[in-house]
Each structure stands twice: as structure tokens, then as C-alpha cells.
């Protein structure tokens, strides 16, 4: 595969393809502004994201990012290191494009008779572009720009149901918190810049390493903390999570899926990259006088606990999933909490795997909610009662996703959770590991509540037979199948994740 014959920027092909698709959609829209040809629009969007996915996978197979000594083609840097395309980037690009594809397919039915089809899809694609770029961004500048590029369309998407109060309220809260957070984030960047004089990650690391920043310990520390705030916002972690429940609940369900899976993953990839590339634990600690993993340990425990406890007593299914996604953010945070001077590749790889699995199972769960909204059966657990009698297949898929979220073997969720657990123990994070177990136990309760509703309870009100929207069903089933299918494929996935983590950590 002739990667090196191509100009370097083509390494960003996944992101570029997504952007191109977005533009293509604009073109279609401008040619026929009133098109309601959902097939065309959704098709284009899906095709674009699938193409991006294909390219990403192809790069992986072609060995981009794997060190040349292992017969790979090494890391490719673009625009003199403003972007890098390594396994980490590709891994998350895959996650993001997969989710995007699922979401666009599902939207085919969901956004039926919605006025602004083209805008919707192009916004999704733009946000995806931003996230893909985040995966590859290697300098605080590009990171911030990519972050905004993914955030701004997201605001619009959440609020896209203009006449739906929930959607608008969610959008507003998402936006306001987002604006605040990005301001904090930017200020953090400025402080880091002040302390080190650089924005490109490796150079920052060098400055910290050779001790030029030693006089600015406080400044740098505050900056790092503010950066953490930015990531916490993007990954919906405490205390920057407040937007999540409302945004997820208010937004169109596919968008909730999109944000809670892809956007979260994107937030984590920049966090991983920044903290591994720019702030090596040991050296940074020697400058700012404290191990920044402490912050993530606290965040991880608090986030998973709050998310799960708050989810336990929800009546609204979508909101329950929203809180559960906060809880899962907490699990993934272990990946950062476990990084230490001597490695941490395992725990970080485990977090990456969890995000991948989460991309499937959580998307699946939210897509079922989308299906329910499409049917118009209602939003609470009671409204979901007895759905299995009318739509066994969809409910079967839902069951798989939920059990996987709860971490029941042999489903994907169990494996990633287990890897998190064991690697956390390996890293000596006893408290975090225990919190993980306790929260999993609790989460089992509210997930099984939903199972109970759809499979066990009898429907309250007699509802007429439910249609089977092709797009939603397809996306849902694919998500569920992948959740199971990961089981045999877990070997290679685990290897890739761990290798990627090792690569950025050294």
C-alpha cells in the first residue's frame, strides 16, 4: 500500500474525507435547498463516514503508526508536527467514524419529516471532522481549534429540534457550560504557553524536561488544571458534567448517542495525547510539585460514583442512560489515573478498549431510545413495558447492549471493565478498582430495570403494532452484533490499544 508516495497530509485522510462529505452535503443542499431525499443525504453521510472508517482501518492494516522496526511504517507527522497520525489517532478515528456511521444510518428514519435534513447531516459530519482532527491534533493550537470545531456543531445539533423545548433547553445548557469550559480551557492553554513558551506538545515536554519551566511551577500547574477542566467538560466528567444529562435528554436520540460515544472518545484522545506527550508524569511532577494523576484519580472515583448513583433512581430512560454515560466516563478516566512514571500502557490501553466497546454498546442503547421515540411510546420505564412482545429483535439487541454496559460476561463491556480493573490493580489504584467494582454492581440494578421493563413487564396501555424502521433497526442490530462479535476479536484489539498506549507513553 503506497502511503509514502502520497503527500504527507493524506495521512489525515479520514478527517479530510469527513470534511469533504460535509461540504458535499452543503453542495447538495445549495443545489436543491428543499430536497427531502433522505436516501441521498443519509446515504452520502454514511458513505462518507464509512469511507473514512475504511481508510482508517486500511492505515492500521498498512501499519501506519507501528514502529518501523516491527515492520510498520512509523508515525506520520503532518504540518511539521501540528498533527500526528499514529495508532492512537487511528484507533480513535475508527471509534469516531463507526459511531458516526451508525448515527447517520439511524438518522435516516429518525429525522424523517424534519425540515433541515441537509444541515443536520452536514453538522454531524462537521462535528465528526472535528473529533477526527482532535484524534490527530498534536499541538495545543490544533487541539483547541479541533475542539471548537467539534463543539460548535454539537451545540446546534442538540438544539436542532427548534420547536421542542427540551431540545432547546438542552442546547442552551450545553452551549453555556461549553462556552465557559472552553474559556477555562483556553486560559489554561495560555498559562501553559506562558510557563513553557511553546504550544506544540513534544516541545512543551522538552521544556519541562530540561527544567526551563521550573520557575513557573504554580503557573504551569494552574494551566494544567484548567486543561483538565476542558477535557472534563468534553468527556462529561465531574464537575464539568452538568450539561450532559440535559443535553442528552433533550437532544434527538441519535445525537445523544453521537455525543455520548464519539464526542466523549474524542475528549479522551486529546486528554491521553496531551498528558502523555506534553506532561510526562515524572518531569512534570518535579516542576509543579504534584503528580497530576492525583486529579484524575479523584475525578474518576467521583465521576463514576455520581453517575451511577444518580442513574439508579431515574424514571426517564434517556436520562438514565445519560447518567450511566457519566459513570462510564469515570471508568475511562481510570486510564489517565493509572498512568505513572513507569508505564501505565496497560491501564490506558484498557481505557481505550472501553471507549471502543462503549462506542458500540452505548450507541446501541441510545439508538433503541431513538427507536422508542420514533415509535412514540414515551420516555419513562413504564412506557417501555412489554416492548419485547412487539419488537423482540430490537429488544434482544437492547438486552445485549445493556448487559454489556453492566459488564456481564461474555459481552464486550465485561472485558474492557475487567482490563480496567486488573490494570488498575496493577497500577496500585486499589481505591479506584474497588470503586469500579462497587459501581458495576450498582449499575447492574438499573440496567436490569430496563431489561425488566421491556422483557418482563406487561404493557400498561395497549399499543398498536410497531413499525420496523429499516435504518434504526440496522444500526441497532449492528451495534449489538459488534458488542458480541468483539469477544473473539478481543485479542488483536487489545494488542492494538496497548501498543498505541505504549507508543505515546514512550
Amino acid at each position, binding site marked *: 500500500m503506497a502511503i509514502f508516495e502520497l503527500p504527507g497530509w493524506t495521512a489525515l485522510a479520514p478527517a479530510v474525507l469527513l470534511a469533504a462529505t460535509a461540504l458535499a452535503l452543503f453542495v447538495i443542499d445549495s443545489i436543491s435547498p428543499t430536497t427531502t431525499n433522505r436516501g441521498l443525504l443519509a446515504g452520502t453521510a454514511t458513505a462518507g463516514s464509512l469511507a473514512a472508517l475504511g481508510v482508517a482501518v486500511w492505515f492500521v492494516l498498512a501499519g501506519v503508526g507501528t514502529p518501523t522496526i516491527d515492520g510498520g511504517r512509523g508515525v506520520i507527522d503532518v504540518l511539521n508536527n501540528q498533527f500526528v497520525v499514529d495508532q492512537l489517532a487511528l484507533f480513535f478515528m475508527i471509534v469516531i467514524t463507526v459511531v458516526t456511521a451508525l448515527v447517520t444510518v439511524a438518522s435516516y428514519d429518525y429525522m424523517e419529516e424534519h425540515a433541515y435534513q441537509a444541515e443536520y447531516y452536514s453538522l454531524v459530519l462537521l462535528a465528526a471532522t472535528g473529533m477526527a482532527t482532535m484524534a490527530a491534533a498534536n499541538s495545543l493550537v490544533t487541539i483547541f481549534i479541533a475542539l471548537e470545531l467539534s463543539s460548535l456543531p454539537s451545540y446546534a445539533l442538540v438544539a436542532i429540534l427548534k420547536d421542542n423545548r427540551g431540545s432547546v433547553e438542552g442546547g*442552551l445548557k450545553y452551549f453555556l457550560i461549553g462556552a465557559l469550559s472552553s474559556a477555562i480551557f483556553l486560559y489554561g492553554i495560555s498559562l501553559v504557553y506562558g510557563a513553557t513558551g511553546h504550544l506544540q506538545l513534544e516541545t512543551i515536554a522538552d521544556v519541562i524536561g530540561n527544567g526551563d519551566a521550573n520557575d513557573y511551577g504554580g503557573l504551569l500547574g494552574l494551566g494544567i488544571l484548567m486543561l483538565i477542566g476542558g477535557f472534563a467538560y468534553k468527556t462529561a466528567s465531574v464537575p464539568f458534567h452538568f450539561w450532559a444529562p440535559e443535553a442528552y435528554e433533550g437532544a434527538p436520540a441519535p445525537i445523544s448517542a453521537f455525543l455520548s460515544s464519539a464526542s466523549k472518545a474524542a475528549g479522551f484522545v486529546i486528554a491521553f495525547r496531551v498528558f502523555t506527550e506534553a506532561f510526562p508524569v515524572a518531569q512534570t511532577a518535579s516542576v509543579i510539585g504534584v503528580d497530576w494523576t492525583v486529579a484524575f484519580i479523584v475525578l474518576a472515583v467521583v465521576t463514576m460514583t455520581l453517575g451511577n448513583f444518580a442513574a439508579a433512581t431515574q424514571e426517564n430512560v434517556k436520562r438514565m442512560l445519560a447518567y450511566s454515560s457519566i459513570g462510564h466516563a469515570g471508568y475511562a478516566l481510570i486510564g489517565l489515573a493509572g498512568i505513572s512514571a513507569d508505564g501505565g500502557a496497560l491501564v490506558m490501553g484498557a481505557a481505550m478498549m472501553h471507549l471502543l466497546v462503549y462506542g458500540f454498546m452505548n450507541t446501541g442503547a441510545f439508538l433503541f431510545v431513538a427507536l422508542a421515540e420514533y415509535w412514540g411510546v414515551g420516555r419513562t420505564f413504564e412506557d417501555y413495558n412489554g416492548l419485547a412482545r412487539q419488537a423482540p429483535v430490537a429488544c434482544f439487541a437492547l438486552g445485549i447492549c445493556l448487559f454489556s454496559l453492566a459488564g456481564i460476561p461474555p459481552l464486550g463491556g465485561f472485558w474492557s471493565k475487567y482490563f480496567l480493573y486488573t490494570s488498575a490493580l496493577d497500577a496500585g489504584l486499589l481505591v479506584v478498582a474497588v470503586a469500579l467494582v462497587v459501581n458495576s454492581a450498582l449499575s447492574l440494578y438499573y440496567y436490569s430495570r430496563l431489561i425488566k421493563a421491556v422483557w418482563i413487564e406487561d404493557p400498561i396501555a395497549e399499543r398498536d403494532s410497531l413499525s420496523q424502521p429499516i435504518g434504526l433497526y440496522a444500526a441497532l442490530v449492528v451495534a449489538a452484533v459488534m458488542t458480541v462479535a468483539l469477544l473473539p476479536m478481543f485479542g488483536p484489539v487489545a494488542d492494538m490499544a496497548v501498543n498505541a498506549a505504549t507508543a505515546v507513553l514512550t
Partner: protein
Amino acid sequence: MAVEVQYYVLLSMALFSIGLFGILTRRNALLFLMSVELMLNAANINLIAFAFYHGNLTGQVFALFTMALAAAEVAIGLGILLVLYRNFRDVDVTVPTTMRW
């Protein structure tokens, strides 16, 4: 004689705090937006000052980017404000509380 960098930092921090204060106290969405702008600009001041201090242009260039982004953000924000007003007949950020707990 140039002004010492820490004064710029103090200025930006003051600005940042004012913005934060605004966000916490103002209930009008527009004022909320303005406060955010203040905070962003505080960051810009930092960037430029530090660029001057470190003697490289990265910060100044980045400041330009941020202004553009800030503008985009405001654009989206205003759009959301419009639909907010359409749905709630108000631009008070504390009005929409249909979703809680």
C-alpha cells in the same frame, strides 16, 4: 521601558475573574455571552503578553485564531438564544428548567 509580564498576567486574571463573576451573577443570556467573551479575551492577553515575553510569535498567531473562534461561538450562541426566546419567550437562562434531577 516595557511593562513587566506579570502585570499583564494580573490584568488578564482580573479580566478572567470579572468574566467568571458575570457568568455566576448575570441571568440574561446576552450578558452571559459577553462574560464568556471577557474570559476568552483574558486568555488572549496572556497569549500575546507571553508571546512577547518568550519572543516567539506562536501566541500572537494563536490569539488571532481564538478571536475567530470566539466569533463563531457567539454566532452559534445567538442562534440558540433566538430559539430559546421563541420557545420560552425570554432570554433569562434560569427560565428553562423543564429537565432536572
